[in-house]
């Protein structure tokens, strides 16, 4: 799309609700937008062998994520009539109840934003080298598995 250096999607720790509000607010000047679609992943208090998950710690192959996301972004802008697309993923520790993933797509008409957001969530889970380690209340850990 452009020759500017691809930027990272990573945020250290949880994604604040305030950041989401600011991102939405910024788009009020883009008056060709008619629809925003947002997906938020929140860390869930799952139970593993009778022990409650209290947090997830995320690690990633950051350089590879940046390269992959640049290619994925381009393919999404080719496939969907998007005005913009913003993606943020946590690195490090995110407590139960906090937001670890924020996908935000905007378009003139709703189908493009909704379909792109939906497909991007699946793409992130399937294609990006990111790993979540669930930390239980007794500090034992279990590597998360996506399905």
């Amino acid at each position: 799309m452009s020759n500017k250096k691809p930027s990272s999607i990573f945020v250290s720790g949880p994604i604040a609700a305030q950041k989401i509000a600011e991102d939405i607010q910024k788009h009020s000047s883009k008056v060709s937008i008619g629809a925003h679609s947002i997906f938020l992943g929140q860390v869930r208090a799952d139970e593993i062998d009778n022990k409650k998950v209290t947090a997830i710690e995320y690690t990633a192959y950051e350089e590879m994520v940046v390269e992959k996301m640049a290619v994925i972004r381009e393919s999404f802008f080719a496939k969907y009539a998007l005005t913009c697309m913003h993606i943020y993923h946590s690195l490090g520790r995110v407590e139960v109840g906090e937001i670890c993933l924020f996908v935000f797509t905007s378009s003139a008409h709703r189908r493009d934003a909704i379909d792109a957001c939906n497909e991007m969530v699946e793409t992130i889970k399937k294609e990006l080298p990111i790993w979540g380690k669930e930390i239980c209340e007794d500090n034992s850990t279990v590597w998360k598995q996506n399905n």
Partner: protein
Amino acid sequence: MDVQVIFFGSIIDITLVDSVLLNNCTDLDSIVNDLIERYPALANKKYFIAVNQKMVHENIKLKMGDTVALMPPFSGG
């Protein structure tokens, strides 16, 4: 010839380090054999391999300064 091998996620539970420098490995197969010798538990482990940030699914020749990554199944999001 030096090649850097980096580990991620549950692979590090086996290697206990996040990277090693290997010499005398001219292709991917020889790297994998070398690693399984050092870390036998890797033999039963499912992982993907990337060379210089690109996924690689067959044996390829390596050159000085390449970075090989061993990555367990992804679980982001």
